[in-house]
């Protein structure tokens, strides 16, 4: 398997931002990969390691540490709901329940050691609780893919999701 030429080229461009040590480009390359292909596959780890002249374990240990990287595909629309204090006080947990209900996601209450991400049966949506998204004054907040949504309540959550109706 080969990666698309433009992807490879962009990766090379990213590496030039780290003239002292190529290894510094490992987080940016993981983002680059996940943005394009959705998740970090075993092939991704080998590819990035080779690109940066590292051992695969040097890359894998980042994927297993940093919460944003995932090793499984998520929904086409991935929701991150803030779980932390100010949002919880404003109703973050209620928002999580409402979003699950609307997207048809059956999310286990507290997955102890499980994958924090739950995907809807049709594969369109996925959801997870994340820690503080740094928008505490306008809680509850959530992100849908790269978009930030502030003051999302169970009442207006439908309007927020409706903006994504056309996206398949």
């Amino acid at each position, binding site marked *: 398997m080969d990666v698309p030429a433009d992807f490879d080229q962009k990766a090379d461009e990213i590496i030039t931002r780290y003239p002292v040590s190529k290894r510094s480009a490992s987080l940016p390359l993981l983002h680059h990969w996940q943005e394009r292909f959705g998740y970090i596959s075993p092939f991704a780890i080998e590819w990035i390691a080779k690109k940066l002249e590292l051992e695969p374990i040097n890359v894998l240990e980042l994927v297993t540490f940093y919460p944003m990287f995932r090793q499984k595909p998520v929904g086409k629309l991935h929701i991150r709901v803030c*779980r932390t204090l100010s949002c919880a006080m404003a109703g973050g947990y209620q928002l999580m329940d409402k979003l699950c209900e609307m997207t048809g996601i059956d999310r286990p209450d507290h997955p102890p050691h499980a994958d924090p991400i739950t995907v809807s049966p049709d594969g369109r949506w996925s959801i997870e609780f994340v820690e503080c998204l740094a928008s505490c004054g306008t809680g509850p907040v959530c992100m849908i893919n790269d978009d930030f949504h502030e003051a999302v309540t169970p009442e207006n959550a439908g309007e927020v999701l409706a903006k994504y109706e056309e996206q398949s």
Partner: protein
Amino acid sequence: MSNVAPLPKPPHPKERRILFDNLSKDNYSNDIDCYLKHGGYDELKKAMQMKPGDITAQVKTAGVRGRGGAGFPAGVKWSFIRPDNKKPVYLVCNADESEPGTFKDRYIIHQDPHQLLEGMIISCYAVNAKLAYIYIRGEFPEGAKILEKALEEAREKNFLGKNILGSGFDCEIYVHRGAGAYICGEETGLIESLEGKRPYPRIKPPYFPAALGLYMSPTIVNNVETLCHVKHIIRMGGEEYAKIGRPNNTGTRVVCVSGDVQKPGNFEIEVGAITMGELLHDLCGGLKEGRKLKAIIPGGSSAKVLRADEKYKIKKKNDQGEMVEEEIGIEDILLDFDTLAAVGSMAGSGGIIVMDDSRNMVETLANINEFYAHESCGQCTPCREGSLWMKKITARMASGHGAEHDTDTLKSVADNIAGKTICAFGEACAWPTQSFVLKFREEFEQAGKALDEHKTEGHHEPTFREVAMEGVATKGA
């Protein structure tokens, strides 16, 4: 489609907007033309005529203390780079904003990115850093794009790149995205992360970033807000800047208020010019209808909680210049570094979380502890194990299964973390538990009776989740 909410205009009379000055203007946009129209990069031009050492001296005179959490004077930090240093110097802007309760950096990055860049370039020139990074948290993808665009604009105008404005100084800045780990806000953890590793903080000494930082070279790590202040210090001059605020607590700072107030949000205030009471009642419009103040976390969730009915003894100079002890209440606390430290907490990152009498403190602490258990990097045993145990115990207590010994166990676990770890995360995760248990002991003891009561009654305080479930059930009916 999503951007940050605009600041209220005009500012409240008790605010003093310096960093947020541009954001208060009508039709202000984040492109370079708009910034230049409002005097942007004038201070960079001015700084380029100065000697680097003089800039550091001005920042020292200004006395600006770090706005990220520790409150260390920025100029002093800069001067830790040895004068005989032969290695390259790096500057890193800490935009990993992730202390719960803090939400100021995104406002600056989204709405006025060039202010940050100008502050950074001046700072790079002052410490002779030719390469700098903005470490922005991974959850700010839009902020990263805005910064990339702003950097491109600055390069085109030769504010960045080779021979900046004909000064002979070369400087390049890149955006580096994190990936959801709170510990990357700790400066040595951030450096490890920037080197492409797991962000395990380094032990100090010897790894003080100004001596052995990025790539084992001297590195200055400053918060977004701190770097923005550098621009204004150059504009006003260090002495003039130092007149804002109080001695040792100079300048303005952004306080981020969230929780149970009428109007939460960001307020830029002169440090030490207003009290907690003025912030709550005047700037934030008071508490919610019919509610009473219960507690305030004054500097991000790591800061020790303040109880509404507590009395604090603080030392103060009277009119004769003698030190006298004064007893004050929570609303009399001046919002500055020294006063918040004197009442046993900290100004921290400026994130103020207000709780009214509807809040259950056991449940609140359970929420905070879940955060720290998730974010401990796992390097030091007391923190890795302790944060998890504190989470488990408080979660159990909050769900109505508290046991009698829980309160003391919590305190003992927390006491065995603080001071026993490589980085300050140990304190950050222990302080909430220590302070909540100390100040709201009766609530914890009450929760600790649950197991006994459970056998007879089965009653307990509802948790966030149970309240949520109830809400859903009501709606369905």
